[in-house]
């Protein structure tokens, strides 16, 4: 095809419309559910808040057969390599929804073992807040994702649109690896220094209250 055909025109945009209509109305989720958000997702699937009415007829627990990787629950550093692998095993086009506070930002677990948000590991399309988010919030996110899907064009590869996010992930991973290398070489902190610091803090606190 010549250069003219690569610019958006009536043929490609109609084809886009058709393809996107098909994709957005049949988003099959892969519930990567680890914690409480998975239970709320289960409630969204069944009975009252029925997920199949927007096209997600049945959840496929395999990355090869699904479109949307729905990360519901806290991701720890132990779980992170597996999440990355599952994401890499999914076929294009694929989208990621970070469900809940823990998946979006680590939640209120600001600790030594939780990943502060899965966007340190995989590129995310939609974030859902809540702990756990209500089924209505989940539907809101699915509608947002459908809008996002309808805006895409099959002329541009999806990989380009997530390039920015992947760059950021690379930087964050390198930083985390450097931290680990540094901590492995660190000497064990002298207990006396630690206790002295604690004492000083307590003294400061007591003085503050006195004033």
């Amino acid at each position, binding site marked *: 095809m010549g250069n003219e055909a690569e610019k958006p025109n009536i043929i490609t945009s109609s084809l886009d419309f058709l393809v996107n209509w098909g994709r957005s109305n049949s988003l099959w989720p892969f519930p990567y559910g680890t914690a409480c958000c998975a239970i709320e997702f289960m409630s969204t699937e069944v009975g009252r808040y029925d997920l199949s009415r927007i096209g997600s007829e049945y959840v496929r627990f395999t990355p090869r057969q699904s479109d949307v990787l729905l990360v519901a629950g806290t991701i720890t*550093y132990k779980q992170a*390599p597996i999440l990355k692998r599952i994401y890499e095993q999914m076929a294009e086009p694929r989208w990621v929804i970070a469900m809940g506070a823990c998946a979006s930002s680590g939640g209120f677990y600001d600790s030594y*073992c939780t990943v502060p948000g899965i966007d340190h590991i995989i590129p995310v399309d939609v974030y859902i807040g809540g702990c756990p988010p209500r089924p209505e919030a989940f539907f809101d996110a699915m509608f947002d994702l459908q809008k996002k899907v309808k805006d895409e064009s099959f002329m541009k590869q999806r990989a380009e649109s997530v390039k920015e996010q992947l760059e950021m992930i690379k930087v964050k*991973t390198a930083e985390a690896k450097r931290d680990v290398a540094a901590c492995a070489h660190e000497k064990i902190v002298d207990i006396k220094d630690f206790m002295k610091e604690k004492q000083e803090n307590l003294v400061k606190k007591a003085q503050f209250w006195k004033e």
Partner: protein
Amino acid sequence: MTVEEIFAILDEKFGAKRETLDKWGVTAVISASYLHNAVQFLKEGSDIKFEMLVDIAGIDYLTYPNHEGPRFAVSYAFKSVSKPGNRIRLKVLVSEEDLNVPTISDLYANANWYEREVFDQFGVIFEGHPDLRRLLNHVEFVGHPLRKDYPAQKRQWLSTNDYLLPQLEKRLEELGYKVVQRSKEVETNDNEFLEGSIKA
């Protein structure tokens, strides 16, 4: 027989002292060398048989106000199933220089995982434990997170998950099988393994 009487026997036979900090139940402080015999006595020898080990908790007294004595302690909670309502706690004080405590995993089957957890979070070493490795934190973790001098926000990246195949072979050997030859896929090249599965 009541739990108080059992405590009196523990005092007499194994030199247990009453823990004053526990004002609501019976806690006996025992030294590590008498631990195994005391637990065996509780399980089989006494009038109330404490058949179930309920919990093993590790404690770090580093920032406890006015604490004298060893830095760590391991607390064992027992309960009786045949005579319900009877509970007793044992406590072993562990100093930082000598982190060894005898294991009771030959008496109670769940002590295996409980002791692994105390090792993981505090670094207390249980002598005689069949398989002392980390339980909750990942395999490349450095340090013992629940100690008071480990900062809560210090995160540690994991490049690739625990292989587990050596542990499987150990389990096979426990069951009486002998591993003769490993499968070819097991021998991966080290570079790929060390790089990990997170290829950023």
